[in-house]
Structures are given as structure tokens and as C-alpha cells.
């Protein structure tokens, strides 16, 4: 589980970094859609931070513990 969380976190951190870099890059380009670029990049950055926080907010056993018998009965 920690492996997959760590792996996904790498992507979320990369997304956050790319969003910041893209925000600056978009500002330097004479494009009519610079606002659109920056809005979606800000959203990407915020979503990556939110998802990262949620991903690491839980520890094993903090959720409902399901035993094998409960698992099969439910």
C-alpha cells in the first residue's frame, strides 16, 4: 500500500511542479488563451495538493476493519 501511495505521490508532486512551471511559461507567451492556461494549471496544482493530502491522511486500521468472515458475509 505504501508502495502504491508513494508511486502515486511521485506523479502528484510532478504534476504540482509542472503546474507551477506551466503557470510561468504561459505568462511569457503572447497567447490569447493565457488566462485559460493559467486557470487550468492552477486547478491542476490545487487538485494535486488536495489529493496528496488525502492520500497520506489515513493509516492502516483507521478505516472500518473488515475481517475475512465479515468480508464474505457482507
Amino acid at each position, binding site marked *: 500500500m505504501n508502495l*502504491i501511495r508513494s508511486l502515486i505521490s511521485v506523479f502528484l508532486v510532478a504534476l504540482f511542479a509542472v503546474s507551477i*512551471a506551466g503557470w510561468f*511559461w504561459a505568462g511569457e507567451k503572447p497567447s490569447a488563451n493565457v488566462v485559460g492556461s493559467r486557470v487550468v494549471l492552477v486547478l491542476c496544482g490545487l487538485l494535486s495538493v488536495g489529493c496528496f493530502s488525502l492520500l497520506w491522511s489515513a493509516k492502516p*486500521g483507521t*478505516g*472500518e476493519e473488515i475481517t*475475512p468472515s465479515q468480508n464474505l458475509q457482507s
Partner: protein
Amino acid sequence: MSATTCALPKATDQMTWMEKINGPYHKEALWIYTAIVLAHWTEHLCQAIQIYLLNWPIPESRGVLGLWFPWMIKSEALHYGYAIIMLVAFWILRKGFVGQSLTWWMIAFWIQFWHHIEHALLQGQAIFQRNLFDSPVPVSIVQLFVPRVELHLFYNTVVFVPMVIAMFYHMFPLPGEAAHQGCSCAWQPRSSRA
């Protein structure tokens, strides 16, 4: 890795493949699907790094595989095909989710549905050799407001994030939810094993 699981429900001959893939093999199916999604993410993030950090010209920024196989990034059929595969996988794997995790999984599904519509528009323009809005290249609707690279980075983000949240609630089910019926995806503490 410290992940542990409860007993794996056994696949039987009476089960359909849908029941198997959403039950005993749900975990493996999600692993494979996640690997495919992350591989696709790698391409988009590498392309963004090439453009934003390395200052490569956009046409030269083709991700990883696109550097060796340039047709891949130019092929609307390939992009559309991937969007369809992702959409179908969301649909097929949904029955393994319950409660909060199902809600987030379906949010990801519906966003991916719109993403696929946008790719269908692009694919249609490529097939009929006629572009919308008199554009010199195929364009989608939201692309009128947001450039393609940023737009698809955004689309992949808004699909990926709810997908991760769904998987999170799948592995850490909320109290009171009768989660994980017939699958072994929940992360169990070591003490509850055996």
C-alpha cells in the same frame, strides 16, 4: 511494502468474468489499470516538462514514446482509443466499488466520458479532414478557451484525482460502509491477519 489483505475470496466456475474481475481479481485488475493510467500520465507529464522546463517547441515535445514514434502523438485514433479503453475500464470495474468509493469512481467515469467526447470530436475531424471553427488543426470545444497541452493535462488530472480518491476509499472504507464485498483490496492492519 506493509500492505496486508483479508482472505481472498475464491473464484469459482459459476462466476462470470465480470464477477471475477470485480471480486477475487479486482485487486489485480486495479493494479493493471493503475499501471496503464500511470504510463499514460508519464507521457503527459514528460511532454509538459519538455515544454515548460526544457523550453522545447511544442511540436517537438512528444513525451517519451513520441520521441521514437512521432506518429503516436499525432494519431488522433490512438488518443481516442486510449480514451475509450479508459472509459470502458471505469465502467467494467465499477461494481467492485461501494459507498463513497463508488461515488468518486463514477465521478471519474463521467469526467472521462466528457474527455472521450472531446477526443471523439478530434477523431471525427481527422477522419473527415474537415476541422471545426475553420481551425487549421483539429480542435475540441474547450480547446477554444484552453490550449491543447494544458487542456489535456487538466483533463487527465480531473480524471486521475477522483480515481485515486475512489481507490483510497476502497482501501480505507468509511465506518458503516459495507465495503469490499468479495474483493481483497482493503488494507488490513497486520494484527487482524491470520
